[in-house]
């Protein structure tokens, strides 16, 4: 499925802003179009993962799972992405991502990224810059939320101070869901 530059800019403005016109052209060529049916598991908590998925259309659900215990964090749709952590540094995934609707995705594996780094280092770096900015913001918000939780003010006021709510809020902030969800 071809993906033109203006469509990419419209869907992923924060990444497009760093890539520039030529960078977008190169980057979209490196992406592999992928379809996921509702219920498909894209990333499984604890299993090896190495692929970034940009969501062109559809809806994905993110959760943290451990031995049957599950903490739902939320859902993300078109214009968002998941899996960037393990694309940068392949390893065990720490979240589970399941397609909630039939979805159209654009995938970039770590191998694909390494090729991009080798052939177009500036484009690869610009992508990393965009992803880093997002990660830095998420980390900062998570740390600030931790401080709020420790001061025990935020949750008493807003959610009645339930443990699950606190954890879910941390996970959502960490995944950037408070800003990117639908």
């Amino acid at each position, binding site marked *: 499925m071809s993906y033109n530059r203006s469509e990419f800019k419209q869907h992923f403005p924060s990444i497009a802003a760093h890539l520039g016109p030529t960078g977008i052209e190169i980057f979209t060529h490196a992406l592999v179009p992928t379809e996921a049916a509702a219920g498909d598991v894209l990333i499984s908590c604890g299993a090896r993962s190495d692929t970034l998925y940009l969501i062109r259309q559809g809806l994905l659900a993110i959760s943290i799972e451990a031995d049957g215990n599950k903490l739902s964090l939320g859902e993300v749709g078109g214009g968002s992405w998941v899996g960037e952590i393990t694309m940068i540094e392949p390893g065990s995934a720490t979240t589970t991502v399941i397609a909630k609707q039939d979805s159209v995705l654009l995938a970039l594996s770590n191998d694909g990224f390494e090729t991009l780094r080798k052939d177009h280092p500036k484009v690869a770096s610009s992508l990393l810059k965009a992803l880093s900015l997002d990660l830095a913001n998420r*980390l900062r918000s998570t740390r600030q939320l931790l401080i709020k939780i*420790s001061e025990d003010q935020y949750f008493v006021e807003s959610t009645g101070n339930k443990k699950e709510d606190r954890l879910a809020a941390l996970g959502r902030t960490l995944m950037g869901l408070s800003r990117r969800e639908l």
Partner: protein
Amino acid sequence: MSVGHLHRRLSAIFYADVAGYSRLTAEDEEGTHRRLNASLDAIAAAIETHSGKVLHFAGDAVLAEFDSVVNALTCAVDIQRALKAQNDSVPDDRKLQFRIGINLGDVIVDRKEIYGDGVNVATRLEDLAEPGGICISRPVYDQVKHQLELGYEYLGERKVKNIAEPVRAYRVLLESDAAAAPKIEGPRPRRGVATLPQLLQTAPMFVGSTQPETDALEKVMSVDDYADGHLFISEGEGGDALYVIMEGEVLISRKKLAGVGFELHKKIGPGEMFGLISLVDSGPCTASCRAVGSVKAASLQRSAFNLLFNIDASIAYQFQYLIARQLAHDVQMFNQLLREIVLSGDETKIYELFRSDSVG
């Protein structure tokens, strides 16, 4: 003494104090005090033996004066050798080690004390000495270099607090040092302290970088000395540079959290860095970073980093990758702990997030 007629004389000024005295006291107050007393007695006796005069003791410090720089340095060497022998059987963390600074200067003499820049420089030289070591100024070096069979290592021009001109400092090489290094004159990096290129090649975050990459990086980084207590980054304020420590220690701290009783308090040293996120954006920093003792560090300003990036320098891409990897690692670590909390139901682990968090 009436105004306009101050009594002055040229003196060899000797200043010594204990490295890490507060830490030693915090660990063992009485034992440290007993050992300090014994050491100060021995130092006073040595000063007298070498025809010097103790002017005063101030806590763990001694200020003394000699008529001869040769006598002052011989005395300092004797003291350090004697204390080293005593310390040999003591565990490292309990060693009481003195640093000694010696300067030759024109001083004001009043009420049996000496005053002036000459004294200040001696105390700053003492700061530059290593525990168990001696540091001297250029005027002292000029007098002793042909008189005493010791090795000297030039430390370069050092800016010192409240002194307008930089001070040219020399480290005196004692026994084992002297055997390992011949007498050295002229600028040479201080031994035990990596130069910036060495650091860039060996620090964990730069492993895998090529020579041209580290060369390019070195060109845009600036190496500076920072005084004890210097605040590199202030919690809650925007940062604008990455720092790599070359020498000394930096304390990373966060405000105490209400209701938790936990305060992040971590020291980092040579080869370690802080302020990474500052290269990505200018949002508020989540911790304060302060120099503990004097610190030498290389800094990379965000503007210089962006410049590198825009001129298409491959090191900038390598750096961008390191930044992304560090951030990815931090998010991964947070996620992993959240997962453990979900599994164990033990919410107190939330605060582990603070403990193991690397400070960007």
